[in-house]
């Protein structure tokens, strides 16, 4: 759409800017303050330069948490995106079942995150949980509170359960918006289903899939509550993702300097990666 130049539009945006600025800029400046100061707990602060940043960037603990975080995000993207697309492709396009599918699939998205964690905890417990019992009954040695591998398996399965529907819903919205004429043309040309997928559906889905990946990336990188309730970061530190580690340092040990420096590094990583996705998305939009 061609937009009109109008500087008064700033007045329309002002309430949003003020509200978000109050919530974003003041706390962010607090974090910046802490990140460059040292305190001995008596409310006096000293300038400490980039000491905390050096400490964080060099600490093995941060590297490990970041590594686990990247692994987690990579795994869920690799599983959820193709799975979501496959499910959306198999969904009915019209009829009464569409609403049923949409409502049931959206359900996990509306459950409070700590309830998701608690639900999966109960579901996966080896003695009283259905999943734990089933796996152990099938002969697997499964105990997510003791074994790192089981913990990771449960964590990823939980996230797949929780968020694949987001990809399904987005893809489905994209598929439904493809005009019938495209399919008719393909039929006349005698295209097979894989050709339709490759040359009609996937290109049309590019835009929604970029959004899906962007959202899943951001949210999985920020994930805190579900793994915290499910495993508490354990066993040991096996499932301590970035957010969990950060809260441990900031609220648990009250090490404000390192926590603040870590927050900023963490935020910058998300910002950088999301900016890349965002640019890709906007470029797509400009092309269309």
């Amino acid at each position, binding site marked *: 759409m061609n937009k009109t130049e109008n500087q008064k539009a700033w007045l329309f945006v002002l309430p949003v800017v003020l509200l978000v600025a109050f919530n974003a800029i003041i706390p962010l400046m607090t974090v910046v303050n802490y990140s460059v100061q040292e305190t001995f707990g008596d409310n006096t602060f000293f300038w400490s330069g980039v000491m905390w940043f050096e400490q964080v960037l060099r600490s093995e603990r941060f590297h490990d948490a970041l590594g686990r975080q990247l692994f987690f995000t990579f795994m869920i993207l690799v599983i959820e995106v193709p799975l979501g697309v496959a499910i959306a492709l198999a969904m009915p396009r019209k009829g009464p079942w569409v609403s049923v599918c*949409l409502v049931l699939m959206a359900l996990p998205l509306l459950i409070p995150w700590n309830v998701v964690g608690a639900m999966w905890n109960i579901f996966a417990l080896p003695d009283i949980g259905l999943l734990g019992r089933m796996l152990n009954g099938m002969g697997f040695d499964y105990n997510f509170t003791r074994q790192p591998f089981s913990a990771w398996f449960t964590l990823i399965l939980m996230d797949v359960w929780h968020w694949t529907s987001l990809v399904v819903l987005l893809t489905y919205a994209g598929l439904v918006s493809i005009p019938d004429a495209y399919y008719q043309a393909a039929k006349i040309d005698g295209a097979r289903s894989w050709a339709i997928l490759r040359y009609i559906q996937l290109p049309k889905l590019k835009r929604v899939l970029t959004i899906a990946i962007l959202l899943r990336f951001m949210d999985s990188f920020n994930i805190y509550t579900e793994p915290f309730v499910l495993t508490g970061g354990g066993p040991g530190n096996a499932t301590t993702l970035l957010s969990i580690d950060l809260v441990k340092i900031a609220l648990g040990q009250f090490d404000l300097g390192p926590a603040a420096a870590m*927050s900023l590094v963490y935020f910058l990583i998300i910002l950088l990666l999301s900016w890349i996705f965002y640019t890709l998305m906007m470029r797509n939009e400009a092309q269309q």
Partner: protein
Amino acid sequence: MTRFRFLVPTLYILFLMLPIYWLVNMSFKTTNEILGTFTLWPVEFTFENYEKILTDPTWYMGYVNSLIYVSINTVLSVGAALPAAYAFSRYRFVGDKHLFFWLLTNRMAPAAVFALPFFQLYSAVGLFDTHLAVALAHTLFNIPLAVWILEGFMSGVPKELDETAYVDGYSFGRFFVKIFIPTIAAGIGVAAFFCFMFSWVELLLAKTLTAVDAKPIAATMTRTASTSGYELGLLAAAGSLTIIPGAFVIYFVRNYIAKGFALGRV
């Protein structure tokens, strides 16, 4: 091949329902049955857990508190986002693109980063442990989301609508309220739904910003789990009840939900 295609969504939905079933199943069991035996459905069927929640104010006020701050947040976010989204979809102005991306960066911000500064900020302005504090804090990620969704829906409305209204002698205010808002009613519904959703499911900030008076149900649950032993049946019942408001609102937006997730950009 095509004949069995329905199996894919069916199996997926089955997978989605299993943990939910298990939670509901637990909520109707007595503590003895949960810990003593393994049963696929409640044998000693009991409403005890639900009774406790619905009669004990420390429990049911959690739901009331959550619903209050979620509602305030939804009104605030959508109300502020409406004019802003209109500006983004219709006008070019200095810094518009940067502003748009800056808004999105707040959607990316990990709540963990903001937990402590938020606690200090809201204590300093005297809002700690009020519904307003949580509602305001949640605007951090809900306003960007609402702006994005509404902007997407508004860009789908041709500009000729605005121009025709002005030719017909409508003032901007009257046009916006009488014509434009009804036109994008679906978008407003979807934006409100998403604000509701993300405010309802968030726990970390809500827990950090409240102590007693505005404590959300989610926090009541975590504190119960840790203080009064592990009452799984009670926890399961409380969890089951948190699913209801979500299921209720999904039903109303079911036809638009996918478009909303695409931020109005389908």
